[in-house]
């Protein structure tokens, strides 16, 4: 076979069902593509071809025995912060370079159960702390549309491998935009599910009250199919919600009408300094949705401008100050640099093991939680979080979903913002509010800049209303061509 790597889950499902191709054929084409282009893109950190082929053979055997799950035999790339038993899980950090995961994350167990093929592990910003995948200690990833530009982050490897047809679909995680922003930068689809939809068990935490695992894919339909497998209550994650999982994939019909749907346009999301080409593409997309029958209403999310400040206090407090990174101490697993006593060991280990951005965030998180500053920073940020959440509650009284840009600009150049952390943080202004409020959002391609870089449209809906973002996205996608464009990788 040839070019199966370029197809979607939905297209491959038909070919697999009719016997036109096997899962082994798909895996072979995906590996051929990785060999051809990943030297340039650098999406993957670890690949295990033998294991992938073995899983593909098992999937083909299950199909021959009558199994028909939509993910059966479909290769999936895994962001390197999800535990897969027996594989590395480096989080692109030196501190976990030699760690071997002793168990499967719940989403991995669900993928195995659905018969998916775990392809390999893709690059990311260290511990998901970053927006460009430049904070990765163990690999360098480029944007497939222009290799001088960043793929976005932190799920940069996930977005790049899907855009480059080096995977059919990928898993990412989104704490402040880490699925939606790289999806926008690389011209693919990404979904940040509602907090609590997907179990976080086995996800190396960045900020526990904000993290969600989600899909990156070539089409909205594919994200729907994968999302359905990922969702569901898990006793191993006490924040996961006991709620039925809708039949996301099959509910997406062929009728692209948005008649009867109210879509909100928040004025605060067209921020100062926004690239005019991004603004135009998004406004064109809004007009397009109107032509599909949607009613466009103005909504206001007045506290949006505080989201970055709130986000960087809460996220760093949860990661650095309170928990997630505290366990990386050189004692039980991971890197250890010996010292004369435990204190010296901790200090040396964490100095050698963490990159600059992780160190900065741990220090900031420790500070905002420290005695005397807790009320001024952390408690105040939590209160403003309430105001941001209330903004969405009010807005969704007036509309079914919100349309917005994902990022103020298309993908910037590698190295352009690495010396100025605050400048990079400010780019998360349009994605962080959704994590703070806990609701769901989708990013999909809605245009290209004059330099040929993708532009993303963000569709935001109320909590547990993934069906609406998928419906709007699918309707838009069925009646536009942006998602069919492919980068030329030289």
């Amino acid at each position, binding site marked *: 076979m040839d070019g199966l790597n370029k197809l979607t889950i939905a297209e491959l499902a038909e070919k697999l069902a009719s016997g036109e191709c096997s899962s082994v054929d798909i895996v072979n084409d995906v590996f051929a593509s990785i060999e051809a282009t990943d030297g340039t893109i650098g999406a993957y950190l670890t690949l295990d071809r033998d294991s992938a082929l073995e899983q593909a053979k098992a999937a083909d055997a299950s199909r021959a025995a009558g199994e028909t799950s939509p993910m059966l035999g479909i290769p999936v790339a895994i962001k390197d912060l999800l535990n897969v038993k027996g594989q590395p899980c480096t989080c692109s950090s030196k501190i976990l370079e030699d760690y071997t995961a002793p168990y499967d994350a719940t989403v991995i167990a669900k993928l195995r159960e659905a018969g998916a093929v775990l392809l390999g592990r893709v690059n990311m910003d260290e511990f998901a702390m970053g927006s460009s995948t430049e904070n990765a200690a163990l690999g360098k990833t480029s944007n497939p549309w222009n290799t001088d530009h960043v793929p976005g982050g932190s799920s940069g490897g996930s977005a790049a491998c899907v855009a480059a047809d080096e995977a059919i679909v990928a898993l990412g995680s989104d704490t402040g935009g880490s699925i939606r922003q790289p999806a926008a930068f690389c011209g693919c689809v990404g979904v940040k599910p509602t907090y609590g939809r997907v179990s976080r068990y086995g996800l190396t935490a960045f900020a526990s009250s904000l993290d969600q695992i989600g899909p990156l894919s070539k089409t909205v339909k594919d994200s729907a199919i994968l999302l359905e497998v990922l969702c569901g209550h898990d006793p191993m994650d006490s924040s996961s919600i006991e709620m039925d999982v809708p039949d996301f994939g099959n509910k997406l019909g062929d009728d692209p009408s948005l008649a009867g749907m109210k879509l909100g346009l928040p004025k605060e999301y067209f921020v100062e300094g926004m690239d005019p080409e991004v603004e135009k593409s998004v406004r064109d997309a809004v007009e397009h949705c109107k032509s599909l029958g949607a009613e466009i209403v103005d909504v206001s999310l007045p506290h949006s401008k505080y989201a970055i400040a709130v986000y960087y206090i809460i996220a760093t407090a949860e990661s650095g100050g309170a928990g997630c990174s505290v366990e990386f101490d050189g004692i039980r697993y991971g890197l250890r640099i010996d010292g004369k006593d435990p204190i010296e060991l901790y200090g040396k280990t964490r100095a050698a093991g963490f990159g600059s951005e992780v160190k900065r965030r741990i*220090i900031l998180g420790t500070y905002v939680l420290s005695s005397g500053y807790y009320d001024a920073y952390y408690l105040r940020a939590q209160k403003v979080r309430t105001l941001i959440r209330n903004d969405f509650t009010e807005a969704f009284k007036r509309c079914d979903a919100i349309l917005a840009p994902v990022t103020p600009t298309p993908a910037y150049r590698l190295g352009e913002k690495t010396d100025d952390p605050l400048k990079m943080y400010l780019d998360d202004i349009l994605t962080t509010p959704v994590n703070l409020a806990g609701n769901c959002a989708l990013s999909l391609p809605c245009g290209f800049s004059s330099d040929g870089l993708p532009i993303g449209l963000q569709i935001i809906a109320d909590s547990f209303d993934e069906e609406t973002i998928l419906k709007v996205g699918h309707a838009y996608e069925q009646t536009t061509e942006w998602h069919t464009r492919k980068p030329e990788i030289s």
Partner: protein
Amino acid sequence: MSEENQGMDVGYVAHLARIDLTAEETSLFQSQLDQVLHYVEQLGELDVNDVEPTAHAFPVYNVLRKDEPGKSLPHADIIANAPAATDGEIRVPKIIDQ
């Protein structure tokens, strides 16, 4: 919130966080994090006296499970990840002097 804020001493906080910084890192992070702290001071503009804090988007309380012994991960798999181990136990530096 700026009045009582004496600013962050990066070297001191890094010590609390158990990260040994070089002199270059200390001075670079000091200027970068001063900028970030200056930026977040805008939250002081808002009157939040009567606002309840949000810790989790969907607070769930008292998630309990039956108190039944489950299966632990295999001992050997855990020890295999330890940076130093002897006889199935993780080796650590001496904590208390004799």
